[in-house]
């Protein structure tokens, strides 16, 4: 009641309604705050998580300056500052400090700052990282002639170029022709890639052929027996073919050796900050750059090139360096295969449950069981997948179709197909529930309309109900995909491995190798972050890989959502 109301001013008539203000609880405002607060908290957590991953993931590949740190005790080190933190130095260490430093530490309540430097040169010193306490630093400089070399082995090298040998033409520290060096480096890298192609693809193909010849012969032995004339005949022919292939192999090996010899003529001699030297073939350097003498474009160039390597190359150095292409490919292929497996299975089950089965106690039990399946820990599915798919189904397939390869399993061990099927099993409840709901949401009037036209039940389902329920079914598939793409635990049992540079799809017949084990981004995160020799070196990769996994899942979901929305548009006309 407003205060200027005449009614309220007359003392005799008490203002109606003003005597008892509405209870706060009854108005529900505290609940509203609670609900809004919960939402806000949730949004903040998600945003914070995404920002953390995004920031760490995006910043990882940006080249940092190299600091040369001279310590109070005369020691010197060079490295990229990685992060800074506050810590409480041990009392004995503080006591040994000069009095003025002791006072500084005391004013900070016994805390001091320290910085983690990535010093590289693992082969020389046995560590990649070093903590340096602030009070131990005498001087920091950033000399422009310091380079960071990313090597194929031993991680980065931080130091100066001492001399270069480009096929006999040697240059010393003073007069290194940087452009010529860059060209020679590019050529050496190209030769290196050729060598790899020969060794990996072509020699791999020849080996595969020799192996399949051997297996064909073994199959014959198993079928016809080892002492029949056919076998002897086949053995002779196989031997001839294998000999031809061996000659091909030798030719390839010779080509590779020639390229290697050429590469050996280009070397670079490096010296670290303390003057210890290291001679490297130019081909074993991924890239190098003068960290303190780089323009913004130079830095962006390094950044983009690192991302390019990350997305397209294979991992190196126990997965802590190089790229994750096999993992991206594996994740994508496995998820796609899973969706292909789960979609028909889930939709058909839901169709029967909702449209055909008599709704009784049995159907209720089935439905509850399906819902409960969604709550089974995923590792249990992994165990089931390994036991049932790999050992029983795969083992039988091996015995029937690939007896010549035994005792080496073909399908009788973890692989792409079994992983996809295990995850399909894991996600099928989601699809069933979503599909059932979508089917139930198709209005009765439309079904009756179709039936009244003389359509059979199946025609009604196929032509009217399913198209109409498709957006809902797609939603279920999207949820299943999101869950499946992020699942790691069961995969560890049924086919994901630490390193599998052989992609499950390649140019060798039958092109799609369902039985191959594969790499997965989720497992890659676990492996790099917690299973590698140097967790500090792996940390940035954890964030980048996480970012990539999130991006991949988001991308796949966005595609599916786009498809769904296009479907939805068909039905979103006037709802009258």
């Amino acid at each position: 009641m407003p205060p200027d109301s005449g009614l309220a001013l007359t003392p005799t008539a008490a203002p109606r309604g003003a005597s008892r203000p509405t209870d706060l609880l009854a108005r529900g405002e505290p609940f509203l705050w609670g609900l809004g607060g919960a939402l806000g908290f949730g949004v903040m957590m998600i945003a914070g998580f995404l920002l953390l991953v995004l920031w760490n993931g995006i910043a990882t590949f940006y080249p940092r300056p190299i600091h040369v740190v001279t310590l109070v005790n005369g020691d010197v080190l060079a490295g990229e500052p990685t992060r800074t933190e506050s810590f409480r130095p041990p009392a004995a260490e503080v006591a040994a400090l000069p009095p003025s430093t002791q006072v500084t530490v005391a004013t900070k309540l016994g805390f001091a700052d320290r910085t983690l430097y990535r010093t590289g040169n693992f082969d020389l010193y046995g560590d990649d990282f070093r903590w340096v306490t602030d009070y131990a630093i005498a001087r920091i400089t950033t000399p422009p002639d310091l380079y960071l070399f990313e090597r194929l082995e031993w991680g980065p090298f931080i130091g100066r170029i001492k001399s270069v040998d480009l096929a006999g033409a040697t240059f010393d520290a003073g007069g290194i022709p940087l452009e010529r060096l860059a060209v020679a480096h590019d050529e050496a890298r190209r030769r290196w890639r050729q060598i790899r192609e020969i060794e990996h693809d072509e020699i791999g193909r020849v080996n595969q052929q020799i192996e399949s010849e051997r297996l064909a012969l073994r199959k014959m032995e198993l079928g016809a027996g080892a002492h029949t004339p056919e076998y002897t005949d086949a053995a002779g022919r196989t031997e001839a073919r294998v000999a031809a292939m061996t000659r091909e192999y030798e030719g390839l090996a010779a080509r590779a050796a020639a390229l290697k010899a050429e590469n050996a003529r280009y070397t670079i001699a490096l010296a670290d900050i303390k003057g210890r030297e290291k001679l490297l073939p130019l081909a074993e350097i991924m890239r190098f750059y003068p960290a303190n003498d780089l323009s913004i474009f130079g830095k962006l160039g390094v950044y983009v090139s690192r991302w390019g390597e990350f997305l397209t190359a294979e991992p190196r150095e126990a997965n802590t360096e190089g790229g994750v292409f096999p993992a991206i490919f594996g994740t994508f292929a496995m998820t796609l295969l899973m969706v292909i497996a789960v979609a028909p299975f889930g939709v058909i089950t839901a169709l029967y449950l909702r449209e055909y089965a008599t709704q009784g106690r049995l159907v209720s039990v089935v439905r509850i069981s399906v819902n409960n399946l969604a709550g089974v820990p995923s590792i249990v599915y992994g165990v089931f997948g390994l036991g049932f798919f790999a050992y029983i189904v795969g083992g039988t397939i091996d015995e029937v179709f690939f007896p010549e390869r035994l005792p080496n399993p073909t399908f009788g061990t973890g692989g792409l197909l079994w992983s996809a099927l295990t995850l399909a099993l894991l996600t099928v409840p989601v699809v069933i529930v979503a599909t059932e709901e979508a089917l139930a949401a198709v209005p009765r009037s439309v079904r009756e309309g179709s039936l009244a036209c003389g359509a059979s039940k199946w025609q009604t389902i196929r032509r009217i109900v399913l198209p109409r329920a498709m957006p809902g079914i797609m939603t279920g598939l999207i949820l299943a995909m999101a869950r499946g793409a992020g699942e790691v635990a069961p995969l560890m049992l049924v086919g994901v491995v630490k390193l599998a540079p052989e992609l499950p799809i390649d140019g060798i017949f039958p092109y799609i190798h369902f039985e191959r084990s594969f790499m997965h981004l989720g497992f890659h995160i676990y492996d790099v972050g917690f299973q590698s020799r140097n967790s500090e070196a792996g940390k940035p990769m954890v964030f980048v890989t996480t970012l990539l996994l999130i991006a991949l899942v988001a991308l796949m979901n966005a595609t599916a959502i786009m498809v769904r929305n296009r479907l939805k548009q068909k039905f979103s006309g006037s709802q009258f």
Partner: protein
Amino acid sequence: MVSVARIQPDEGETHYHVRAGTEGAIIDAENFNLFYGRKQALFDITLSVPRGLVCALIGPSGCGKSTFLRCLNRMNDLIDNVTINGTMRIEGRDLYDPGIDVIALRKRMGMVFQKPNPFPMSIFENVVYPLRIDGVRDRNLLEETCERALRGAALWDEAKDRLKESALSLSGGQQQRLCIARAIAADPEVLLMDEPCSALDPIATSKIEELIDELKGRYTIIIVTHNMQQAARVSDNTAFMYLGRLIEFGETEIMFTAPKVTKTLDYVTGRFG
């Protein structure tokens, strides 16, 4: 309700003005009963619907009009726990004979529902749906049928330029005429209309009524309606139902001016219902 006191003692008996013989009748119900579980919904309905005319079913809500209508193309089969007894014949053939092909039966009976229920596809596909499910692929035949059905449903002029558009883009009245076009596309003998105008505005309603007038003769139309004026305007015969029983059946003119049963009079004059 004042009229309760005046209910006739022989409520179970139906009063017929003209007892249409089985010859000339396309649909013929005899002592037809229907139960939803244990609850009886239709009591001893005996009714002959003459061929080629419009027959209106009127009565208050829950009196069994729609149930009766849905018995004619066996849409009640979709509901669990429905049992029937008595006979229901179309052209002398028992509808509930176990040997009858329900799908073929439904093709002889077009049905239009209370709310327009176009399928989520193009206008063209909606109209030719009955042919599509028969597996007709002949483009010419489909287009011919589409035009004939849309002309028959007085929608051709409005829809001919947008046959490829979604049927859901039509207005409510147009959607209902589309449903009528769909119902007559397969050239049925009987057209069942279950309150076809109850969700439409007056202009759309009058268009549908005109359409019913035009369709009369070619099809036997059975229309359920709550709107007494509509029944009076469009139908030749009217059946008044109450609480699952057929109270009175006769020519519409007589039914609305001089019904024989007080209950009918009370209902048509708006004293209850």
